[in-house]
């Protein structure tokens, strides 16, 4: 249930990133680039040794992936420890990792994992069923201190140690999403010695896992240095190199400023960067010294969410009209340099439950106007805004944080687009959004962003179940809730996808979401580097990476 920050957190300033990177990239001759949405970058023959310098966009503030849900923490957690399972980024299939196989009971309440027998933690402790049990018990103790993980094991009853290498995890209620959750770093397995330590000390670096790297040091605001573990031999099924990593060290430096991050790459001060700003994508593409890697994230497509309890949005026809009045291609071209793909459904293509509903998301202002008129917004006032019989204007407000951000620019463009169908879109930038449950927000439209490699993300976002994260909280659509609950009761992929497809169609028909575009995780990589890969939610896997000196 990983969520990408849709709007950047407050920044000291916004630097025109493209300007910065131009000079550094000016040596380019415009030859072919190797960008694309492959999940790995160019390679010839791997070289052993060396330090890869990688620019992080933000300070993780903690290196324990169980405690913090942020992507930067899980990205470091991914290098330090492994998970019971892995997820194939292409198919969404769950693959064996620390667990070689598993069984799930018919009612999706009992998960039995058969574990690898040759794995050790970096502190020397062997990995076994006791270790698995100790990790789940730690998450229970942490409670809200492990917000992501505790949600994944909601209704946890206990772990039975069947034998040294077989762990049986039981839940009070069906919990089908748990299998995919076992592939996340939020449920990454830490050493039994680590889990008994003070969580704060673990956060700051007193951590031991089974991963291909160990933590050499974490310096807040500066970065994290990872050191290869020489006896590592159980790499993720996604890695080609199953043994110890090629690199001696990975030096993760925190460079929060977008333009400086891109410039550091193009001037050779770092070897790879994350979160390449869309404005810099074209510049880097033209430069033969670098390649770009864009990984589609298995998320919900970034939507506008019409609040169904807003008096002007109670009628599904109005909500549908807003979707028809949206020119998505224009938005992506103008705001995101044509880099992000337009939405073709409720979920992105990378989510295993994706259903292609692109036909429902076309731009058709005439049909939008017809729907608005049917819904009673028949007259157009002098200011071009529609009015109903009671004389109310069709004015809809959005509140958001951050001015000058791409998100705000998108709102401004949408304001113009909706003006054409007679809708007044009022932009209200805020210092901070009100801390209210989803059914009490005092405005009409919001945006949302949430990444997870499981169709269960639909239940989280579009059900009425969770007060702070479900868009229909307090205003349930019974039919939809029923479909989404069904997702939890079976682990049969085909069955779940069928349910999910129905739910997605209903979400669009009822206008609960107005999907706009799909986020990508974009990396810039020097040609000195080979074997750079990312996993399903866009976290690098450094096991295959190497660097030409």
């Amino acid at each position, binding site marked *: 249930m990983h969520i990408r920050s*849709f709007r950047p957190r407050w920044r000291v300033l916004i630097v025109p990133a493209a300007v910065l990177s131009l000079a*550094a990239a000016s040596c380019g001759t415009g030859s072919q680039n190797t960008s694309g949405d492959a999940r790995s970058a160019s390679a010839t023959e791997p070289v052993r040794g060396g330090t890869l310098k990688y620019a992080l966009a933000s300070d993780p503030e*903690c290196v324990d992936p169980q405690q913090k849900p942020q992507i930067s923490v899980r990205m470091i957690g991914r290098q330090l420890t492994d998970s019971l399972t892995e997820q194939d980024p292409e198919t969404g299939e769950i693959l064996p990792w620390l667990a070689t196989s598993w069984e799930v009971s018919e009612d999706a309440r009992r998960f039995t994992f058969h574990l690898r027998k040759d794995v050790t933690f970096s502190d020397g402790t062997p990995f076994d069923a006791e270790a698995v049990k100790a990790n789940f018990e730690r998450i229970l103790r942490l409670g809200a201190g492990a917000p992501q993980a505790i949600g994944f094991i*909601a209704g946890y009853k206990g772990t039975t140690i069947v034998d040294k290498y077989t762990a049986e995890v039981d839940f009070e209620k069906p919990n089908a999403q748990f299998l995919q959750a076992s592939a996340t770093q939020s449920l990454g397995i830490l050493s039994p010695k680590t889990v008994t330590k003070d969580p704060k000390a673990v956060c*700051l670096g007193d951590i031991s896992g089974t991963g291909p790297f160990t933590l050499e040091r974490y310096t807040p*605001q500066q970065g994290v240095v990872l050191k290869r573990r020489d006896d590592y031999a159980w790499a993720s099924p996604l890695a080609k190199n199953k043994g110890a990593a090629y690199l001696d060290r990975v030096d993760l430096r925190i460079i*929060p400023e977008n333009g400086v991050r891109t410039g550091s790459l193009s001037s050779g001060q770092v070897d790879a960067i994350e979160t390449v700003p869309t404005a810099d994508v074209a510049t880097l593409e033209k430069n033969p010294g670098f390649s770009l890697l864009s990984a589609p994230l298995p998320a919900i497509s970034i939507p506008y969410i019409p609040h169904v309890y807003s008096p002007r949005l109670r009628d599904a026809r109005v909500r549908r009209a807003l979707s028809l009045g949206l020119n998505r291609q224009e938005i992506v071209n103008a705001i995101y340099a044509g880099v992000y793909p337009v939405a073709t459904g409720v979920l992105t293509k990378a989510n295993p439950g994706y259903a292609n509903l692109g036909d429902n998301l076309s731009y058709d202002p005439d049909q939008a106007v017809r729907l608005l008129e049917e819904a009673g917004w028949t007259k157009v006032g002098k200011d071009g805004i529609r009015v109903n019989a009671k004389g109310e204007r069709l004015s809809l407000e959005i509140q958001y*944080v951050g001015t000058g951000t791409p998100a705000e620019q998108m709102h401004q463009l949408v304001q113009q687009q909706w003006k054409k169908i007679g809708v007044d879109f009022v932009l209200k930038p805020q210092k901070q959004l009100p801390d209210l449950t989803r059914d009490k927000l005092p405005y009409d439209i*919001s945006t949302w962003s949430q990444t997870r490699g499981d169709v269960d993300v639909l239940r989280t976002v579009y059900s009425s179940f969770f007060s702070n994260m479900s868009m229909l909280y307090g205003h349930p659509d019974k039919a939809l809730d029923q479909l989404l609950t069904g997702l939890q009761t079976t682990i049969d992929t085909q069955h779940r996808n069928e349910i999910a497809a129905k739910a997605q169609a209903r979400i669009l028909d009822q206008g609960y979401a107005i999907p706009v575009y799909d986020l990508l995780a974009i990396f810039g990589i020097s040609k000195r580097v080979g074997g750079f890969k990312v996993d399903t939610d866009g976290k690098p896997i450094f096991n295959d990476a190497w660097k030409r000196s």
Partner: protein
Amino acid sequence: MRGYVVRRLVHGAFVLWAAVTLSFAVLHLVPGDPVSIMLGQGEGADVSNVSAAQVEALRASLGLDRPLPLQYLSYLWNAVHLDFGQSYSTGEPVTTMIARALPATVSLALLSLLIAVATGVGAAIAATLLPWAPARSLFLSTTVVGVSVPSFWIAILLIQLLSFRLGWFPAVGNDGLTSLVLPAVSLAIPTAGVLAQVLGKSIRTALGEPYILTARAKGAGRLRILLRHAIRNASIPTMTMIGMMVGGVLAGATITETIFARQGVGRITVDAINAHDFPVIQALVFFAGGLYVLVNLVVDLVYPKVDPRIVVRTAMA
């Protein structure tokens, strides 16, 4: 003299109390809850699925469930003992965090103040002393540019030219003196501009005073008049400014340290405000306020040494 210092210290303590009280009030008035931020709740952030009881447990463990006046009193009590508790986001003792970041910010501040004073005073003198009028006005107008260009823009130009293009200095980090040059210069330029403006203006005012005419009539040269007579009198406003600049440099550090990805107190400030990390913000306000009070006290004590006309009253006036 001692009475004056004691009185000023009492004033200083009052200023400090006002600063921490105000910051406490502002932090609790501004919407946003540190616990929600920790759990990644709120629109557009990482959201997670936690039960209400678990949230309350976390709130209680941070002491945030106590009534506000109680929180305030315990904060004041701890501040008096220089105990600021632990950061909400990292769990680290706040004093450890600040102590780790302080050397980087202090060296940045010192070098940038040094550059600012040297170039500012140099420019002011050049703008009055150069024998050719167009050259003087050229210097005068460059100082205007220095004042008006924001430091983040200078930072970007410097990185662009001296790091990305020429590769003379690293763009980011805290590794040695080379990584200090660009941030110090970009932080110094606006300060130097202001300094040159103020000092230049005071020098020109001083040069119009009758005692300068007397000195000139006695046959003193241009340089002697400036250095012996004018500068001494002109430097009082400048000294006041240097006192205030300490605050300016601390504020500027938030921007500069972010752009240059440097460790430091400025970065901690930005992160703490983003996360509503109360203990960290309150400690920062306390230390910044204390530094400000101290520097201004020192400046006030130096005045009489520079200008004997300024008398510090020892008796209660």
